């Protein structure tokens, strides 16, 4: 997993609440058996017109927003389906950081597996970040747990284990396999009614 420490980037605000993973990546794109290539389908139904052309009104299609790496959103981002394709699509499009009011639990976990950092900040702070110009950058400092926007620093909380995982880019399975003996020991203690 790609590590994240300090990141500077431009933003895209999508301030709707409850953006569900069906919107982030509609089901017709879940049939692939790879983890890559979903970025071109990110927010497909919002992003493209019925004839397949990009909808010029949708912010992801705005010329001046291309290259943005930070998504600013509302409450309960990533709710609904557990599809990790949502995290893969956001990452593949180029997003490294999401700043929202809250996240669904499953989507949050999926982010921790893919190096997409989900930050929680209050609406006040997000409104300011959503209002800056397309070319203006904000800075996310994970080690010191703050987002800096127009000279103002906003502190965020994150569980220390997930924080270290993002900073180190750790592979979970490698870590867990170190506990193989403990897992075996646990399995030997399980009741059996067969």
């Amino acid at each position, binding site marked *: 997993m790609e590590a994240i420490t300090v990141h500077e980037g431009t933003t895209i605000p999508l301030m709707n609440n409850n953006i*569900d993973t069906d919107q982030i990546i509609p089901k017709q794109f879940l*049939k692939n058996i790879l983890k890559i290539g979903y970025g071109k389908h990110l927010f497909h139904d919002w992003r493209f017109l019925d004839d397949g052309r990009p909808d010029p009104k949708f912010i992801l299609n705005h010329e001046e927003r291309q290259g943005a790496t930070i998504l600013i959103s509302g409450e309960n981002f990533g*709710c609904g389906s557990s599809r*990790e394709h949502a995290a893969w699509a956001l990452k593949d499009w180029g997003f490294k950081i999401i700043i929202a009011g809250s996240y669904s639990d499953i989507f949050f976990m999926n982010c921790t597996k893919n190096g997409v950092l989900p930050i929680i900040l209050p609406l006040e702070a997000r409104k300011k970040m959503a209002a800056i110009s397309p070319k203006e950058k904000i800075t996310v400092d994970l080690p010191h747990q703050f987002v800096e926007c127009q000279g103002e620093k906003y502190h965020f909380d994150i569980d220390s284990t997930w924080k270290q995982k993002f900073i180190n880019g750790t592979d979970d399975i490698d870590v*867990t396999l170190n506990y193989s003996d403990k897992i075996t020991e646990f*399995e030997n203690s399980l009741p059996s009614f*067969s």
Partner: protein
Amino acid sequence: MGKTLFDKLWEKHVITGKPGEPQLIYIDLHLVHEVTSPQAFEGLRVNNRRVRRPERTFATMDHNVPTKDIFNIQDTISLKQIETLKTNCDEFGIRLAEIGSADQGIVHVIGPQLGLTQPGQTVVCGDSHTATHGAFGSIAFGIGTSEVEHVLATQSIWQLKPKTMGIHLHGKLQAGVSAKDIIMALIATYGVDFGTGYALEFYGDTVDRLSMENRMSICNMAIEGGAKMGMMKPDQTTFEYIKGRKYAPKKMEEAIKYWQQFYTDSPADYDKVLEFDVSNLAPYISWGTNPSMSVPISSKLPDIADMNFQRAYDYMDLKPHMAASAIPIQWIFIGSCTNGRLADLQEAARVLKGHHLAKNVTAWIVPGSRTVKNEAEKLGLDKIFKEAGCEWRDPGCSACLAMNPDKIPAGIHCASTTNRNFEGRQGKDARTHLASPAMVAAAGIHGHFVDIRQKEVI
């Protein structure tokens, strides 16, 4: 201080880790389907890893399968995904209920039906409706594909212990009001994220009286309230349901004795409690584009509260203050992991018997599994549905998520027994209205929603 059902289950499964930090939790049962598993198996292959406990893993095909002609998958990418699951299960030694198998069906219907789901377990699946299995007194939750890979390789998962919320359901439901209405009413009252960060436990005299099928419908939609886990304590109803099923414990009495330790000592042990009286509850229907945008059938649609409501009204092509019963219905869908079990089909058949669908209404009835289909046919339900003008189909997820050929056409208002009314969920620009099986069936007869508590409507 006592412990909750959830605390007891959690403690039984911690392999390592301190409270307050992510802990490594053992997984008793891992259910797998074709959509969220291929990348996980590929990850194992690339890293030369094996499945740690194939005998604790069970796979089926449900999301992609066509339900009109189940053996004829025309979409080559869907076919590839189906074939990939077969190859992966063969290579890694995993039991698979494939298309045509007697055990095939929606993953959350077949787990309980086969007796794989049992009290006291931890159950995961790469699907958010895994909470369904919590109805048996287990910790059951949906996971992403990276976590699927992790569980395949290690039979365990890192999780932060959530807080607990007890939802006290009390009172007797009126005739015509169902378990589906309870969970829809809870979400309409408390919102789509009231359960985020919590494990929900539903308890009380209302729950005690519910069948396992109805309990599953409630736990199934815990995720629609933001909680990835919803559970209920196991009781005699649970034990009776499991007895005699294919993978039920052989030493049933011993198992029951073990399962009986799993209950909440006192409501005071929850981090939070919600009281919910169901005795005056009306049937609910959804009008908008998330499950909290729902109202009792007897009421009018709400004001436009904010930009999210405006967007929902535009998408659904409805207006504030119109009567909920005036919403026109051109399609009905009965099925899914929420309401695709035999009891749900019986309920729908009870309403449809001797009636015919309104002119211009199309109806798809999709049993949750091959077994449900066979049992329904033994009871003659298929005849009732067909005589009413409905299509009787093969088992699968079908139009609940529409990633198979079953899609609701654009602009159509579909009364649906499913769990999500998101934009495009049942087909691009399709307009979903969630409701109970009886309410959906009655809407099919009338071409609009009706209050099934009123005798004259059926």
